């Protein structure tokens, strides 16, 4: 790689600044006392503390999953701090009470939290390290009976709903990272859309890791009651630091009869530098239950950041005629590693799922699609269509496709197709001979390759995602 290209790569992470703010944090290490500390800090009821301790007990008996195609030095779970919150005198009642330094941080990230400045039609819950610092448009949503608040507030104000659904999609002991999250999660977002209500605006959480030597363990729970609709967006950034930081989130979605949830993620955690120093370990468990008949859950993700990504947003298609979708773009450049895909578990009759995955590998990046499509005996007449395409840019990167297809029902039809290709010299030459720069040509071709996924994103996010793709691949050709 040329020096100028090198410079481009290291310049390319725009969100690598650190906010200087007083923080309240737990001492490093993980034990029952730390969990009690977190729970006490958040003023949680007894049942939730018990739930956390139960998860911790399970976690202690588990080991990290080894099957993913990702490689990293062992993580010392006792060295990190499991709670970090910006110090505030009291919980902010409104945006005006929020520390101006925090507000400036979000402005710099392009997420203004003042409602008058905010993006039209997008309500935001901003999570800074371990806590939610602000949620916009709450009142307006409240008029429709929609609950959109931080997880902590949901525990206090809507404890019954939280208790009913927490862990009902991703059980405490689902996997190593989910168990860890269940023990130590600090905050996150909570959404409840009542029966028959179509949420009029995009709901959005913006996650920011700021503090050093902490992990972030947020928990998101979205419930769409019968006939409800909600579109939810999630964005993430972190400062540029030389050490690796762990992000182990859990997202649970529940769709009841005729409900629809659309969940979109643009993940742009700090990916580490060109030599693979630093960057976020993004070990995330996301799952949706299409619990009701004719319900639908659609995951769209654009994964450009993180040193390592390990996530498989899936759908449990329990209700008859329910629909699951997974649209994914994952980019790995430099020494990034991504092992991502989905699980579609067909349980109900006439269930349908679609998987479109686009993996782009550049530099020394390793990109794995890992997916499971399982059709259970009772899922008569179910359908799955999967398409996995990989694009390789350069000779040092890798693309891997590992689908599992398990069918227990003869009336169902499962189709899987995968291709691997590179950007052809012809395509590049054609673009350049029409006056495009090399970078622009690459960006154009890559965006074309990802089009089927990008079109699933809400408008505001699609533009950002396109830019992000170009930035992530800077320096990968030439």
């Amino acid at each position, binding site marked *: 790689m040329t020096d100028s290209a090198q410079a481009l790569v290291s310049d390319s992470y725009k969100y690598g600044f650190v906010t200087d703010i007083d923080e309240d944090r737990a001492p490093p290490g993980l034990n029952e006392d730390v969990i009690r500390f977190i729970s006490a800090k958040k003023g949680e009821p007894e049942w939730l503390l018990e739930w956390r301790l139960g998860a911790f007990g399970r976690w202690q008996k588990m080991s990290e999953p080894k099957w993913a195609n990702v490689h990293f030095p062992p993580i010392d779970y006792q060295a990190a701090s499991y709670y970090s919150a910006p110090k505030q005198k009291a919980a902010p009642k409104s945006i005006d009470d929020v520390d101006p330094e925090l507000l400036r941080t979000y402005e710099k990230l392009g997420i203004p939290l003042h409602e008058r400045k905010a993006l039209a039609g997008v309500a935001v819950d901003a999570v800074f390290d371990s806590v939610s610092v602000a949620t916009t448009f709450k009142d307006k949503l409240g008029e429709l009976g929609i609950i959109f608040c931080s997880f902590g507030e949901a525990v206090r104000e809507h404890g019954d709903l939280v208790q009913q659904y927490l862990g009902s999609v991703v059980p405490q002991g689902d996997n190593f990272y989910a168990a860890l999250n269940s023990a130590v999660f600090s905050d996150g977002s909570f959404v409840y859309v009542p029966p028959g209500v179509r949420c009029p605006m995009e709901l959005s959480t913006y996650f920011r890791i700021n503090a050093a030597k902490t992990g972030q363990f947020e928990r998101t729970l979205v419930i769409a009651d019968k006939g409800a609709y909600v579109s939810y967006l999630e964005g993430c950034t972190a400062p540029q630091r030389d050490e690796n930081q762990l992000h182990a989130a859990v997202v649970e979605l529940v769709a009841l009869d005729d409900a629809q949830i659309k969940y979109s993620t643009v993940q742009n955690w700090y990916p580490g530098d060109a030599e693979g120093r630093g960057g976020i370990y993004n070990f995330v468990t996301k799952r949706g239950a299409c619990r009701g008949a004719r319900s639908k859950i659609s995951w769209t993700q654009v994964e450009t950041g993180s040193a390592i990504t390990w996530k498989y947003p899936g759908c449990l298609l329990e209700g008859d005629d329910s629909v699951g979708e997974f649209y994914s773009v994952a980019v790995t450049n430099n020494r990034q590693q991504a092992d991502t895909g989905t699980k579609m578990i067909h349980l109900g009759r006439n269930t349908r799922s679609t998987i479109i995955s686009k993996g782009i590998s550049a530099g020394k990046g390793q990109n794995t699609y890992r997916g499971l499509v399982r059709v259970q005996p009772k899922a008569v007449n179910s359908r799955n269509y999967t398409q996995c395409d990989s694009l390789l840019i350069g000779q040092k990167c*890798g693309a891997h496709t590992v689908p599992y297809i398990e069918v227990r029902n003869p009336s169902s039809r*499962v189709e*899987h197709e995968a291709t691997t290709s590179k950007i052809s010299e012809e395509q590049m030459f054609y673009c350049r001979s029409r006056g495009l720069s090399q970078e622009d040509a690459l960006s154009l071709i890559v965006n074309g390759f990802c089009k089927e996924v990008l079109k699933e994103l809400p408008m505001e996010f699609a533009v950002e995602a396109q830019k992000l793709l170009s930035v992530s691949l800077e320096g990968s050709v030439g």
Partner: protein
Amino acid sequence: MAVKTEAAPYLDVFRPNAGEPAWLRDARAKARDAFVARGFPSRRDEAWRFTNLRPLADKPFEPGHGKLELKPGSLPKGAWFASMARTLIEKPEIARRAIGESDLAGGQPFASLNAAMFADGFVLALDEGVTLDPPVEIVHSAGDGSINLRNLIVLAPSSRATIVERYCGEGAYWTNTVTTVSVGAGASLTHVKVQDEGPEAIHFGMVRAALEPAATYRNFGLTLGANLSRQDVQVAHGIGSIVDLAGAYLQRGDQDTTNAVVVDHAAPGATTRELFKGVLDKRSHGAFLGTIRVREGAQKTDAKQTSRALLLSDRASVDTKPELEILADDVKCAHGAAVGDLDKDTLFYLRARGIGIDEARRMLIEAFVLEAFETVEQPELRGHLAARVRVWLEAA
């Protein structure tokens, strides 16, 4: 030495044979140690996650006997086709090539067990430029116990051969074969195997093939018999070599079969075509695991893998894992997998022409299966495979 429980019975019956050459005794001892330390694979082993080994673990097999019949036709000069037992005595320098490092390492436990225990097998070796025509045939029939066969096919540069293996038998027995294949530069091998073991039998077959530049290796497998069976084919490409791997598995009752193929492109310019067809009726289970690996530098690789399965009954099931590992950028790689029932529109078309539903289904299944053997060059051989498929279908 730690001995895995399930491996112990096989250790007990292991007897060194003083009459064998030292290299072989040494290799057998190492392979035995590797096997007993490793034991059977479990479902936690990725390559075995879909294979239920209970029928084998439940009841250890005593060493058994089978009848190995070699049908050479007319052998040209420069061709060696004989039993492994005879080859060990008369051509030990050839026989030696049948055992490799991986047998001694224990990564493939049943190949290690085979190396430790085998008594016979077949060897086909052709000198440079020799063409073998018509095909040679091997028929193995078994009756009881465990039978380990160690086979070897060595084609020197520019030679050509077609070989047909057939396995059958009656009773409860376990056939465990390991075949080492080496195809020289510009040589061409067509390797056909019909597994038609008895309904109580267990059959494992492992093929490890290494190709030199511009070699062609075609492997066709038809799996019909056995209660539990597994066919592993592992191929290492040479520069510009060609691999055509195809298989059909037809199962019913509570039969269980796995096809596991790994094709390794470490050299540039090689071509792989894989096509596997499964038909699963009653309570049977089938699995296909296919890996295409393209290593760094293996540019201009052209690989395509297709796996399709038909489920004919509510209780039949299939697991498929088609895997691509690509570490070179200038390649064309694709895989496709599909599971379903017969296409309803096609079935209706046939019925609308007066063909009864059972007959229509049979015709469509037959066509579906035989696509796997379309690239078999010899029409008689293709016809033979089609006839076996028809017999299976008509037995329904």
